[in-house]
């Protein structure tokens, strides 16, 4: 049996009922090489302090719950491994740019409102009844939007986005990727309806094209690309409104 290894985990703690401001606490956690940072947090909660609070569930990077800043980088803690930091200290903090509710839990209500605002559902281009069967959609047509369906709503891209940090009203990368997912779906005819939001004050033109959102995305959704395409679309739409006698464009 090899010797037990320990890692120092520094956690940004905040209990709103008793703390005036967030502060750090350091825990010395025994670990094995298969342990994730999430498991490190669980070890602290189960053995040292049951009040440590964080969101988690699936442990397999698909539910999107366990995002946190790990040594300053937004990551899913379930697929980030302690061994990759050892022997150095690991610092974990709540996701940047969101208000902290307690310890590692942030207020996501703003993000959820944004997600709801993009009309993230099929607005049928052509109605079809169930007994007519499925819509025909070729593998190539699926590829047009498939990448943008992979978003797990983990909000790491918001923690990475400097513009969201400056303007919390910015619709942001994740919600924009979702909007784009429906626009690109051959079954959908709602792009025009969604354009108002794309071009609005909260819309794509807030983006300063840093691209860090795509870099931290654990599912390779490339939200920066979705934002970019919609900048072009919104600009086109804007000019076409001037040019078209009907005052609108598809």
């Amino acid at each position, binding site marked *: 049996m090899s010797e037990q290894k320990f890692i120092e985990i520094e956690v940004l703690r905040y209990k709103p009922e008793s703390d005036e401001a967030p502060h750090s606490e350091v825990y010395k956690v025994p670990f094995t090489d*298969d342990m994730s940072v999430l498991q490190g947090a669980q070890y602290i909660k*189960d053995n040292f*302090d049951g009040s440590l609070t964080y*969101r988690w569930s699936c442990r397999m990077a698909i539910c999107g719950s366990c995002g946190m800043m790990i040594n300053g980088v937004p990551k899913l803690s379930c697929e980030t491994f302690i061994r990759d930091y050892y022997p150095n200290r690991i610092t974990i903090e709540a996701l940047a740019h969101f208000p902290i509710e307690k310890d590692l839990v942030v207020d996501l209500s703003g993000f959820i409102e944004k997600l709801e605002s993009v009309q993230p*559902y099929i607005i049928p281009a052509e109605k079809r009844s169930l007994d007519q069967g499925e819509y025909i959609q070729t593998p190539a047509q699926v590829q047009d939007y498939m990448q943008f369906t992979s978003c797990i709503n983990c909000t790491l891209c918001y923690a990475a986005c400097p513009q969201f940090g400056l303007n919390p009203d910015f619709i942001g990368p994740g919600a924009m990727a979702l909007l784009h997912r429906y626009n690109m779906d051959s079954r*959908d005819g709602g792009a025009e309806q969604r354009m108002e939001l794309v071009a609005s004050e909260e819309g794509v033109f807030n983006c300063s094209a840093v691209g860090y959102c795509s870099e931290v995305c654990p599912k390779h959704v490339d939200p920066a690309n979705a934002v970019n395409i919609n900048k072009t679309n919104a600009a086109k739409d804007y000019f076409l409104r001037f040019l078209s006698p009907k005052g609108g464009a598809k």
Partner: protein
Amino acid sequence: MNIYKADVVIVGGGGSGLRAAIAVAQSDPSLKIALVSKVYPMRSHTVSAEGGAAGVKRDDDNYDLHFHDTVGGGDWLCEQDVVEYFVQQAPIELTQLEHWGCPWSRTPEGKVNVRPFGGMKIERTWFAADKSGFHILHTLFQTSIQFPSIKRFDEHFCVDILEEDGRCQGIVAVEMATGEFTMIQGKSVIVATGGAGRIFRESTLGGIVTGDTQGAVFRHGVALRDMEFVQYHPTCMPITGLLFTEACRGEGGYLVNKDGYRYLQDYGLGPIGDKPKNKYMELGPRDRLSQSFYFEMQKGRVFEDPVLGKHVHLDLRHLGKERLHERLPLICEMAETFLGIDPATQPIPVRPAVHYTMGGIATDNKCETTLRGLYAIGECSNVGLHGANRLGSNSLTELVVFGKLAGDEAAKTAKSVGFGNTDSLHKQAEAIEKRVTAFKAQTGGKERVATIRKEMVQTMEDGCGIYRVHDTMQTTCDKLAELRERFKNVELDDKSSVWNTDWLTAIELDYQLDVAQAIAYSAINRKESRGAHQRLDGYEQRDDVNFLKHSDAFYVQGALPRIQYADVKITKSQPAARVYGAAGEKADAERKASHV
């Protein structure tokens, strides 16, 4: 305490809860719906389902074949009228998901494609790569957003249900971010809170799959049915239990022991053909595959590793990189991230882990429980679909088929009854608040929630594993009684109001201990072997004379659960030998011949 009134209250925002909410909203937009979930709906555990959803699709398939696969797969403990309804509704509901945007994988012509799955005679599993549950859940959640009558209570924890005049009339929930209580009064209530697999140690499941709401309903006198049937999925990551989907085998993966031998041929699943054949070898049902692992382990033919422990290999190398990345991208990602393995060049170490609870809140064939106005759907329920062993890809379909049915039924009920007496319900709700808040006030105890939970999950694994014997089951029963006692001495570290997960897990654990007892006592009393309940102590055979019955566990305050038995509904499939591989094919031919 806040008071909110809704026509239909739904607890649980996973696949079935969302489908039910949409059904209510579509059936009558004037009905108010409260959708309560302890996580944001898209975090629900439906998200982790990988392989796909079963529904007749191909021309060479039919309802009857899906029916017989399901009933035989369930070792004849299925309610056959329920299965008949299910197989007929399945393609309709899966098409509905398509209309709502679910990105099902397609054939080159643009139609929905299907893949083979364990225990299924014909390819009928609709899939969205290997993230089917993820796509179904997000599709349903996003679709639900367009209905203004659905009022969500996200990150609200249901602590109990309310019952008066023999009817379920609402729930009590805690807002996790504040610790505030809300009574949500309703005319009908649907429970859709998922399974109880986290009562076991090594599982594929997310941390939220706790089974606590089953415990709450149990205490209100509703039976937990067939709780002894716990599914071990054969291909899980050692230690973490993370799942490698059955689709790995559907796509043609092999299971091999340390000698490189495809051992399933020794357990009535062979012979090996030159290509994968439905219901043969790796495409056998989950219970049989997990049981085969157990015997390979007894024979010393599995790999042993100081870190990973005992395991076998899931070999996907012959499928080639391209197909793996197209059909099983999540599996490739997980193997790489968690094990540092590229499945295109290395086999994946796997072993069985707890994956699904076939048992649950007993309902009739319309999803209603014996407590009028209370419905249960999805993994938390037992409508009688899966019997003693669930076939992979039937449960995702279950979510939408019975979500829709329960939504329609609950809406009808809500329109036929009025609201109960708010004042007296409020008094009940206050008593509930007092009871669960008392955990926080408790001081001087030496027990920790985490310790008791750890001992519970270990004893459940020891006593209610893949194979069971009386003595270890009795040890588990005794241990649970001890833990029940020790739970009284829990003292929490966190006594605050905001986001107190220490407290919420204590409430969960209190209910989980009851559910664990329901499982253990149902198991020790079933003196036969059937599906996922296998004994090695003189009850190795199925016993249709005494046990072609559902076990119903009833809560008895301060005492052990009472186990009763109920008849199984048989319509067109009389119990027969449950065989796969060549023997299965022979039995199918005989069944067909006797029908002409």
